[in-house]
C-alpha cells in the first residue's frame, strides 16, 4: 500500500517548502502526492466591490479553478521531481475544513503543510489553518516552519 500524502498549496513560500519536503519523503518511499488548492474568492478592487465584498465582474468559479490548477502544476514543476506520482485537486470552501475533509475521503496518511501562508497577517490566516488542521485531522500532520 503506497502512502498517500496531502500537500495544501496556496502559492506561498512556506507551502513550496512543505512540498519540497513531501517530495523528499516521496523519493524515500514512492508515496502518491495529492496537491490541494483552495481558491479564495477575490474581492473586486472598485469602490462598490470594496464596500460590499463582491467579486470582480470577470470572476467565475471555473476560472478560479483553472488558475488553481495552473498554480498546482507550476508548484509541482518547481520541485523538479517529475517521475513521482501526483494528483491535482482544486476544491472550494473553508481551507481547514476542506483539507480535513479531503484527508478523510482520500484516505490520506500524512498531511504536509507550511505553517505560514500567503494571507500574511503574520500567520494569522494560514498559520491558523495549519493550527486547526493539526488539531482535527484524522491522520498525521507535519508542519514546516521556515524562519524569516
Amino acid at each position, binding site marked *: 500500500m503506497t502512502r498517500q500524502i496531502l500537500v495544501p498549496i496556496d502559492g506561498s513560500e512556506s507551502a513550496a517548502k512543505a512540498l519540497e519536503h513531501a517530495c523528499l519523503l516521496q523519493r524515500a518511499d514512492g508515496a502518491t502526492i495529492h496537491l490541494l488548492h483552495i481558491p479564495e474568492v477575490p474581492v473586486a478592487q472598485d469602490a462598490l466591490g470594496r464596500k460590499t465584498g463582491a467579486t470582480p465582474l470577470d470572476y467565475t468559479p471555473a476560472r478560479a479553478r483553472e488558475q488553481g490548477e495552473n498554480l498546482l502544476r507550476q508548484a509541482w514543476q518547481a520541485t523538479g521531481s517529475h517521475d513521482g506520482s501526483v494528483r491535482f485537486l482544486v476544491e472550494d470552501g473553508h481551507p481547514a475544513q476542506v483539507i480535513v475533509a479531503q484527508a478523510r475521503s482520500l484516505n490520506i496518511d500524512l498531511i504536509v503543510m507550511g505553517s505560514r501562508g500567503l494571507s500574511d497577517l503574520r500567520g494569522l490566516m494560514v498559520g491558523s489553518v495549519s493550527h486547526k488542521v493539526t488539531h482535527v485531522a484524522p491522520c498525521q500532520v507535519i508542519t514546516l516552519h521556515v*524562519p524569516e
Partner: protein
Amino acid sequence: MIKRILVPLDGSDGARQALAHASWLQRASDATLCLLMVREPPSADEHLGAMVGVPPVETLEADDDSEERRLLQAAWRELGNAEGHVEIRVATGSPAPTIVEQAQTFGADLIVMGSRGQGQFQSLVFGSVSQQVTESASCPVVTYHVPQSETES
C-alpha cells in the same frame, strides 16, 4: 539539500514518530542525525532551593548521563539504519532554549520534533516547547503531530 538534522527526544510517542520521520529524511538525503536528550534539572525541595529554584546539590554533582545515552543509542538502533551517520548528545537545561542552542552548535539545517510530549499537561507542556523552538530557531522546524486518538490508544 538537508545535511544535518537535529531530533530532540524525550521518550514520548510523538518524539519517536518524529524520529522515524527524520530517519526517512536521512535515508533520502544522506544527512547526519543528531539525537538530543535534554535533562531538566529538578528544583530542590528543601526550603532555600524551593524558593530560588536551584537544583539539588546531588544533581549538580551527578554528571552521569550514561542512562540518557543508553536510551538514545537504543532509539537509534531501533531505526535499523546502521550505515547512517549519527551523533548522540545529552544536554542539561530548560528544554526549548537548550534545543535551539544545540541546533546552533550542531549546525543543524533542520529540527524535527514531536508536538505532544510526556509532560502532564500534554500539549501545554511539550506543545509549547515545540512552539518556542519554532519561534526562536534559526533553521526550519518540522513539527510532527499525531492525531489525539492515536496518542491515547
